[in-house]
């Protein structure tokens, strides 16, 4: 700590150069914050997916429906604890930009299947009693200012009503919270019986099934048993773990993680060159001062430490500020896509990775000039000055 003022003074020596270098590091870490958050948001469903849940979809495609009658047959398969279904509604609230998932479900079965969706008992009872009732995640409710008792019109893009109308009006009867951070609290869930009875076509069909298995160890065998049950039927199935299902869903838009990491790597490599060059230049300009420090008794290792410390201070200050600002922007601003990334927060683990990266960046950029300063013979350094 007694050398801190020396490091700080060196950073202030060429203010413009220091500020520009810090700015480049700062922006790199802002970018880091957003990219890891987007990556995390895209993979969050995978990490919170239940290990004891399977998803059954049509073998041809996710958008092909399955008969509702499959539920009873699935529940008869050995090892299946429970089964329920979900269907993609695909409606619009006021504006197509207002994106959130809407699903008709069987309330009791769905809430039992997903205990991570926490709904107060009175709201649960209200949902069971109200055919047009819907529950909505806290995030979406807050976003649109909905409260219990509101009537919410959703414009259907797929399912018109029997009377030809495309406007479905739901009563908000409950607002669920996620049991833990990372649970999707953007969904809009309404009753399947109301939906099935009112829709113009497709009655008796569902989108896909979720299965709760008794023993996660048996998940693969149960998946095979489910698919075997419906083999050679008009609607053959493809069963996978919920995790694989969510992963497959994410991969429909390409390997985003790989693309994001490639962008980050390119940015960091460039910044390493910029910051490394700055440090090398700064130390070259100070050859004589390095000589003075050594003459008055600084050991080679202390000189090495001073240069490395300066590089780390520069990187930690700029990178730390970048991380802090990106954390603040992400926390305050939320999902910048308007709903496509429902779970959008700066993951604490990645924040720690970011802090470590700032330190690593300092070490990498400072090592070469620090070694040069350390090895510089003191009499040569004084002569060169």
């Amino acid at each position: 700590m007694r050398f801190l003022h020396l490091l700080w003074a060196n950073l202030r020596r060429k203010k413009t150069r220091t500020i520009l270098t810090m700015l480049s590091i700062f922006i790199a870490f802002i970018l880091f914050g957003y990219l890891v958050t987007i990556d995390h948001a895209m993979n969050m469903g995978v990490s919170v997916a239940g290990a004891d849940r399977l998803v059954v979809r049509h073998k041809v495609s996710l958008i092909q429906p399955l008969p509702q009658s499959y539920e009873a047959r699935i529940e008869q398969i050995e090892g299946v604890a429970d089964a329920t279904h979900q269907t993609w509604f695909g409606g619009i609230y006021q504006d197509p930009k207002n994106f959130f998932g809407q699903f008709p479900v069987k309330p009791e079965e769905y809430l039992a299947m997903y205990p991570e969706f926490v709904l107060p008992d009175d709201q649960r009872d209200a949902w069971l009693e109200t055919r047009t009732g819907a529950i909505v995640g806290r995030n979406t409710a807050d976003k649109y200012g909905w409260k219990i008792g509101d009537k919410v019109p959703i414009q259907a893009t797929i399912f018109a009503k029997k009377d030809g109308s495309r406007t479905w009006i739901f009563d908000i009867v409950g607002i669920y919270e996620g049991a833990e951070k990372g649970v999707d609290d953007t969904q809009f869930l309404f009753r399947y019986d109301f939906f099935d009875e009112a829709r113009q076509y497709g009655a008796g069909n569902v989108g896909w099934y979720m299965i709760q298995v008794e023993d996660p160890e048996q998940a693969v065998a149960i998946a095979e048993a489910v698919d075997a049950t419906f083999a050679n039927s008009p609607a053959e199935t493809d069963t996978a773990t919920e995790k694989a299902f969510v992963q497959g869903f994410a991969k429909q838009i390409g390997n985003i993680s790989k693309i994001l990491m490639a962008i980050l790597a390119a940015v960091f490599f460039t910044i390493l060159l910029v910051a490394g060059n700055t440090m090398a230049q700064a130390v070259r300009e100070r050859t004589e001062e390095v000589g003075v420090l050594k003459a008055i008794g600084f050991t080679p290792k202390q000189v090495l430490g001073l240069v490395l410390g300066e590089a780390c201070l520069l990187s930690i200050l700029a990178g730390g500020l970048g991380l802090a600002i990106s954390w603040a922007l992400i926390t305050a601003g939320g999902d910048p896509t308007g709903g496509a990334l429902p779970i959008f927060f700066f993951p604490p683990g990645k924040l720690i990775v970011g802090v470590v990266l700032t330190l690593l960046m300092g070490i990498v950029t400072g090592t070469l000039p620090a070694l040069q300063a350390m090895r510089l013979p003191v009499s040569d350094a004084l002569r060169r000055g």
Partner: protein
Amino acid sequence: MSELVRASGVSKDFKRGAETIHVLEALDLAVGQGEFLALMGPSGSGKSTLLNLIGGLDRPSSGTIEVGGRRIDDLSNRQLAGWRARHVGFVFQFYNLLPMLTAARNVELPLLLTPLSKSERRQQVETALGIVGLTERTKHYPRQLSGGEQQRVGIARAIASDPNLILADEPTGDLDRKSGDEVLDILQTLSSQHGKTIIMVTHDPLAADRADRTLHLDKGRLIEGHTA
């Protein structure tokens, strides 16, 4: 007067391509405790090289150097650094202050290597700056000081950790006569009143006259000497 510095048979060679340059040749020298010695000689005669060897900034090609009864030519770089921090103060021709540090912070530099507390360091810095008459300029940066004042800060830095030996390489070479005289006054005081051993390289006979003894170097050999 007891002996502080002894150089015995010291030679120093430098390689320049295939050529070997003999800067010092079998030089013998003894400097007493509290003595003020001036080294004179033409450029390239080896004065600064000798000063560097005595200060442990470089090693002789042959021969031995003892300071305070301890051989320093066989110490490692790390050991030499520690030894310099405790026993030697350097004064440079162009002051060599760190421009982004105040006068007080510059003087404090060698004290950062000691276990002294912040308040002890501050006290020692004030004492050193007091000796050179700059207590009013502690918060000034080098660019805000005249050449003479900067050199006085340089001297304060050299004595801050209270070393026995002060090595000054042309300390008045960049100063006008008045400022140079002030610097020489301080060096004389350090020698006569504080018992510091001072070895000063200079081209200026008037500066050399302030020393107790002057030695002349030419082509790496001591050729004459007299006591002031």
